């Protein structure tokens, strides 16, 4: 009887109005930019062939954290607008909203119905750059940029999450978050009618950090349009909860692409240490390699292996020097 009830529930979920199951998971392959996701349809029908046409070809897989615990670290300077303690409490609260989600269905053997992912704050770090080090310690850093937004869209982006992953499985190796504090952010209540509510942005970006993508459900925290002056994204909606439960169900499995271990991978025991160890410092650049610098003095390191590319990119405004 209970089994038939579960089957009925499953069918009900599939047959429910599309908006009721609009959540999407972040994938290892970008959605074609000309495709507009709809509730119930996150990717186009020919998504696999689109991904295969990319250079290099990509296998579309949802991303996921393997460990039962993931860490995050606030950059020690936080922001002129948002003191460290305030920011720390805000991120702790945002992650707690996600990691305290109770999933439907019977509890596990230990009586838990909570999602099987936890977030741990490893404390302030000095590193103020988004990076993933393949041979040094890492940190899942959260950075406020107060004076200069380091990307090419200083007046547009408010929050940005970068996820590094294994393209063969979708396992997340690293995640970092940047908040653009060069624009005024609203803290606390009430939020001005034209304000950008930081808690809403932080809660939304935390969902991305855990592997959630945008949803077609306009009430959800993961909806792709934020209405200025509102706080609705602070509160998780059923669609958000269903999404995270689908990735990290109670009991510790990770629902992954069917080509990976049949679609389910057991969690690793709680250890929030980032991949290759935890470091409060940014990684050091490789000791050998080429650096490409422009005539303005700004530089960017490139590995020797991509020297051919730098030649193609054009040398009109740059000089190349190689370390010994």
């Amino acid at each position, binding site marked *: 009887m*209970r*089994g038939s009830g*579960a089957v009925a*529930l499953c069918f009900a979920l599939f047959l429910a109005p599309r908006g009721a*199951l609009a959540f*999407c*998971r*972040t*994938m*290892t392959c970008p*959605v*074609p*930019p*000309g495709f*507009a*996701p709809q509730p119930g349809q*996150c*990717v186009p029908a020919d998504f696999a062939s689109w991904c295969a*046409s*990319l*250079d290099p070809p990509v296998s579309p897989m*949802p991303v996921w954290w393997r460990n039962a615990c993931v860490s995050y670290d606030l950059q020690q300077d936080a922001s002129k607008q948002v003191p460290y303690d305030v920011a720390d409490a805000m991120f702790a609260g945002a992650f707690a909203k996600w990691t305290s989600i109770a999933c439907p*269905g*019977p509890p596990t053997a230990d009586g838990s119905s909570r999602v099987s992912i936890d977030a741990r704050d490893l404390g302030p770090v000095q590193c103020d750059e*988004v*990076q*993933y080090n393949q041979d040094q310690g890492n940190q899942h850093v959260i950075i406020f940029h107060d004076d200069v937004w380091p*990307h*090419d*869209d200083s*007046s*547009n*982006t408010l929050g*940005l*999450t*970068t996820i590094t992953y*294994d*393209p063969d499985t979708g396992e997340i190796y690293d995640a970092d978050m940047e908040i653009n504090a060069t624009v005024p952010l609203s803290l606390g209540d009430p939020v001005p009618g034209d304000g*950008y509510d930081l808690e809403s*942005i932080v809660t*939304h*970006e935390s969902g991305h950090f855990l592997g959630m*993508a*945008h949803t077609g459900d306009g009430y959800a925290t*993961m909806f*792709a*349009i934020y209405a200025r002056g509102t706080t609705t994204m602070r509160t998780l909606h059923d669609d958000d909860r269903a999404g995270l439960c689908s990735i990290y*169900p109670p009991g510790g499995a990770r*629902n992954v692409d069917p080509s990976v271990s049949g*679609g389910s991978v057991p969690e690793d025991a709680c250890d929030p240490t980032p991949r290759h160890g935890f470091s409060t410092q940014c990684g050091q650049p490789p000791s050998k390699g080429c650096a490409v*610098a422009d*005539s303005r003095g700004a530089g*960017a*390191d*490139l590995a020797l292996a*991509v020297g051919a590319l730098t030649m193609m*990119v*054009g040398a*009109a*405004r740059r000089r190349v020097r190689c370390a010994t």
Partner: protein
Amino acid sequence: MLRGILGACVTALAVVAVDAHASVSIQVSWDALLHDSTAAVVATPTETRSVWENGRIYTYAHLRVDRAVAGELAAGGDPWVRTMGGVVDKVGQLVDGEPVLAPGQASLLFLHPGPPGAFVVTARGQGQFPVVADADPKAPPHLVRSSSAGALVPPRVPGPVPAPPMAADVVHGRLVDDVARDVAAAWDRAHAR
């Protein structure tokens, strides 16, 4: 038994429910997009290369300029455009809101100089408008807003003045020729500010 059924259900849902990208950005206005760009082109990526730079992965796309709409790039040109994210060997990186430049897929792109020898797309994914064929094969292609632009919020508008037109609202759903004409007509005015 019960847990198995529910587990299968959740797994199925997890596989059915997939992607899109993400970041939170302020919508770019039409005037700002023109003003902040040095070139507007309809271009098609011919190849892409991803590299590590300072602990991040960047992808360089080599474009073929199919049509110079306005600004510094000429038809037939072959600029490189850098975007954040990509795949190098066994490591991939996703950066929300970046434009997606895939070989063979034409877009109207608003560009400005980026790293040495390369351009970047102005306002990231908001400066890319994919060229989409019409359902009627005889009809000319049109432009759509990019789904890779991430989460968007309207800009602040000081005082009671009406909000300026947003770039996506000006371009989305219109014919390439019509938008190109509008860009060319507004280009000098936008750059005179």
